[in-house]
């Protein structure tokens, strides 16, 4: 398996040319250019993958599980995100895709939409049982959880403590497969197929579990081609398409990876769905000062339009969204999950977090407030001297951040090319 670094994102020094695209677009200002190469500041990175989108040189690697890593397992199970159904032509049906995954080497493929319906129903129960605090914040997007831990620590207690569908599915498999198949648990690999690198960090460093139930995550980008290759052959083998007809697709669950997917079924609650990193930060700022108390649930997804806009997908998100919405309307509102199951699993805490999400507050400018104030004054003075061109040539994303780096001892004023000219 890939080594466990703190972040699944890393900079490929050979491809990085030290331009400013990732630098200025990083929403948490977690990148600096040092010695002509981009560097990641681990404490600030929330794994959103915006840098992957903006890098024109493909120099941001995301350490997801590779296909060859799977050979470590005797029995391999894939849990694909429902976003995968939107990546192929309109006439490629979910069952074709699930079967293709079996043909490229997975022994079992776990369809996630019914679990999405289950966790959605549990979410509704949770909202009813817990009138406070408001708004509650859905926790499916791991980047949102990480953003709240670091930037909005007081909102940690607003996070709905229900595990996302991918973890629930893996938990169900983990609890039973070894016994049923009579294989040692360590020989079973349960792999998520993911639209984003952040799922990898939620597997390696879960925020609400002692240990993730998943063994890894393969990106849609990496698995797209192998699937395409067997899909094409599939056309002549109509019989095989009907080999595993038992899959119960849920119209309620299949759209949950789209922005608004979780709020759509909550008809008796006041909800809003926000997508995109900047809008997510804006709405969390409002929630933090108590402006959204009238809302029951806030659904945030940092990728535009939800997981269909993930940085590791292949198809453009508008087409993918259209195809998934096509499935949602074709499948309709028929439930595939028994209400009794929801009661049993939800009230027995099978779906719950093992522990609450803990704040990870960013350190202040200085441990002593007096010193912190002094540093802020110095920062303001420095910032006034800087040219305010926000050019990125110093290696920081903007002048204010350079001033901040200087008072933190991470940079010097001469890093600014305009200032060094002035000095000569």
């Amino acid at each position, binding site marked *: 398996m890939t080594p466990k670094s703190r972040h699944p994102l890393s900079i490929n020094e050979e491809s990085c040319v030290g331009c400013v695209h990732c630098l200025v677009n990083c929403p948490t200002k977690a990148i600096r250019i040092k010695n002509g190469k981009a560097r990641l500041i681990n404490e600030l990175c929330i794994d959103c993958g915006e840098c992957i989108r903006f890098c024109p040189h493909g120099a941001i690697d995301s350490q997801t599980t590779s296909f060859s890593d799977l050979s470590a397992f005797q029995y391999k199970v894939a849990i694909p995100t429902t976003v995968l159904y939107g990546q192929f032509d309109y006439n490629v049906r979910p069952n074709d895709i699930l079967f293709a995954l079996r043909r490229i080497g997975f022994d079992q493929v776990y369809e996630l939409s019914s679990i999405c319906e289950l966790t959605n129903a549990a979410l509704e129960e949770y909202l009813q049982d817990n009138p406070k605090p408001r708004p509650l914040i859905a926790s499916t997007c791991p980047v949102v959880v990480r953003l709240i831990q670091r930037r909005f620590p007081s909102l940690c207690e607003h996070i709905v403590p229900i595990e996302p569908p991918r973890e629930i599915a893996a938990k169900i498999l983990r609890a039973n497969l070894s016994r049923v198949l009579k294989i040692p648990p360590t020989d079973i690999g349960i792999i998520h197929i993911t639209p984003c690198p952040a799922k990898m960090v939620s597997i390696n460093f879960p925020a609400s579990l002692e240990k993730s139930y998943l063994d890894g995550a393969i990106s849609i980008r990496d698995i797209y081609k192998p699937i395409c290759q067997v899909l094409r052959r599939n056309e002549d083998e109509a019989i095989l398409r009907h080999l595993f007809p038992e899959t119960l697709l849920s119209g309620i669950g299949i759209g949950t990876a789209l922005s608004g997917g979780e709020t759509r079924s909550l008809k008796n609650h006041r909800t809003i769905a926000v997508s995109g990193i900047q809008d997510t930060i804006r709405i969390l*700022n409002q929630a933090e*000062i108590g*402006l959204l108390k009238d809302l029951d649930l806030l659904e945030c997804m940092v990728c535009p339009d939800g997981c269909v806009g993930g940085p590791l997908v292949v198809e453009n998100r508008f087409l993918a969204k259209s195809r998934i919405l096509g499935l949602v309307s074709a499948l309709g509102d028929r439930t595939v999950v028994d209400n009794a199951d929801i009661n049993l699993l939800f009230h027995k805490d099978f779906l719950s977090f093992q522990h609450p999400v803990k704040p990870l507050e960013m350190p*202040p400018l200085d*441990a002593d*407030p*007096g*010193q*912190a*104030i002094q540093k802020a004054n110095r920062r303001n003075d420095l910032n006034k001297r800087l040219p305010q061109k926000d050019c990125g040539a110093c290696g920081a994303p903007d002048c204010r951040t350079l001033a901040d780096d200087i008072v933190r001892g991470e940079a010097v004023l001469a890093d600014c090319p305009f200032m060094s000219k002035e000095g000569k």
Partner: protein
Amino acid sequence: MNGDFVFRQQFEIKGGDFSRGGEVSCEVKNLLKEFGLPAASVRRAAIASYEAEMNVIMYADHGFLDFSVTPLEIRIVVEDNGPGIADIELAMNEGYSTATPEMRELGFGAGMGLSNIKKNTDRFEITSEVGKGARLSMIIRAEERRA
């Protein structure tokens, strides 16, 4: 006020610009977090400055927020060139509002702003001259939540 360490910054507030409403108080909140002041004080200051900022945006053409901080207290003064407040005592009542229907449609004007500031500050003073503007002055002590 402990004069040794004072941080001061002034922010402009543009009246009528609802799309940028809340940006100044967000900046205030982020600065206070960087100073490592107690979370409860940061939150109270953020709420009070948000309400004051929105008042300027709703009623005035122009105003500013003057922010000064010591390790012991947070002072916020918000001045504007709006219509002023005729009866300050009345304006402090919960539910009293002179907001127009348009403002109410945007979700403002519930008449909770000034009382919300009072609730979240340790000292709050308003001075105003009708036709000239208003000056809101508030102090929040930077102390841990009382046990």
